[in-house]
């Protein structure tokens, strides 16, 4: 065993550097989810109810997001967005300092854009698991559609959506690691910057690995707890 191979001191120091990127990674995750959840749900409804134009739009949108690597999405949006906005602002003489916008905003937009498309599919399949009879029963006792969704359909749908939501969240957290490409001050970038000084890349990647592992396992655990609470009503039928 070659002890000089891994620099323990650096490994430990950089662990904390990597850890300091966690708040940003989580912030991006939470904001992206907060934006993507309602949009994803709304678009899922347009798919299920086959609303003419929106349905087609959603299909293309989802197929693009699922069909192309996220790193490419990040890059394309990061390049195009300011160009498009700048030329729009120019045309309408809006004086907005588009280039002084913090990268964090790009991260919010990009990851929301991506996550919303993923959630469309999550919600669509979850909605399908709720028996149509539930909606009919709600109607039959005099609930309106909105009331029926809020009180009966969504709580049940969430339960079957939970595992996929968990996966989507974990994938989102992992995807923020690609935020390094747009200078997002998250885990990977921080560790890599630290590694650059002495070229301690292997150590840095081990640290990144550990941080993500802790982060994602925690998230996984929280989801499990939440799922259990949500699905109380599914209590094993005692025959």
């Amino acid at each position, binding site marked *: 065993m070659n002890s000089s191979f891994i620099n323990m001191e650096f490994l430990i120091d950089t662990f904390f550097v990597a850890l300091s990127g966690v708040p940003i990674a989580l912030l991006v995750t939470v904001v992206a989810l907060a934006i993507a959840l309602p949009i994803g749900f709304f678009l899922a409804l347009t798919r299920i109810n086959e609303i003419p134009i929106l349905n087609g739009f959603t299909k293309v949108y989802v197929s693009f997001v699922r069909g192309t690597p996220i790193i490419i999405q990040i890059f394309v949006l990061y390049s195009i967005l300011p*160009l498009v906005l700048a030329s729009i602002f120019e045309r309408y003489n809006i004086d907005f300092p588009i280039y002084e916008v913090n990268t964090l905003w790009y991260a919010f937009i990009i990851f929301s854009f991506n996550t919303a498309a993923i959630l469309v599919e999550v919600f669509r399949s979850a909605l399908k698991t709720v028996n149509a009879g539930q909606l009919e029963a709600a109607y039959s006792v005099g609930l309106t559609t909105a009331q029926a969704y809020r009180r009966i359909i969504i709580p049940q749908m969430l339960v079957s959506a939970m595992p996929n939501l968990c996966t989507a969240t974990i994938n989102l957290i992992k995807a923020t690691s690609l935020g*390094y490409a747009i200078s997002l001050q998250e885990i990977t970038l921080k560790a890599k*910057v630290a590694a*650059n000084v002495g*070229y301690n*890349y292997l150590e840095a990647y081990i640290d990144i690995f550990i941080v993500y592992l802790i982060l994602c396992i925690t998230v996984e655990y929280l989801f499990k707890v939440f799922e259990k609470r949500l699905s109380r009503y599914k209590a094993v039928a005692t025959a």
Partner: protein
Amino acid sequence: GNGESEKSSGTKTTEDGQEVRVVKVAYDQAGKPMTFIDENGNATGYDVEVMKLVDELLPEYEFEFVGTTNDDLLIGVEQGKYHAGVKNAFWTEERTQKFIFPQEFLGLSSAGLVLKKENENIKDLSDFATAGMTLAPIAANNAQYTVIAEYNDANPDNPVKLQAGEEFTVDVVQWVNEGRVDGGVIIEGAFKGQVLTEGGPYYNLKDEVVYNEFAVIKTWPLFNKNEQEFADAYDKALAELKETDKLRELSVEFYGRDLFEVLDKVER
């Protein structure tokens, strides 16, 4: 690094019975004009061409050039996957713990700021910092990052806002011209290739942006820690080369300028 890897490097015997050691020299395949792959798929660039000259002077070695990425080059040379690597690397104290820096530097690199024409008066980093300007992100594994970071360490009261990013997402010249940032760090050769060469991608911007050199820096090949012998051989060859005009010619070919003329002003 470790001892065993040495055994594995191949050896060949030439017709006249001499033992020839095959060594792998990695280069950053995306580092035009220092190191890159030309249209025919061959390794070239200033650093690579110098190493080819070195190879010619070292009959006991045969160089095998391996194109790769920055990150891989650094780790690969450190681990011994490659025996040496060229990537327009600058010297830092920390790096000497991981790699052998030879006695003789490989070449010179002119680093400067890309600015809009109207900001021509910004001559160096301290002007830039004083003006409170924004700098395009630099890849964390790029030596330019270290240069700026070192400037900031030396001038804690007038630092440049430094951001790490990724090479391929930042189109420096375009960003400056758009106004997305006020300035960006660039190597002179790259600037000339993009903007000043007819047919270059941003030749149309030649009157819009300027290049203001702030430093000329020595660049080094990196050797694996166990390759002292190889590094010594390199030193011998390079000293020989510096007696000739060959390096100057390559500098003109790839950077459009003989940087050795300003060698006495180079600080690091």
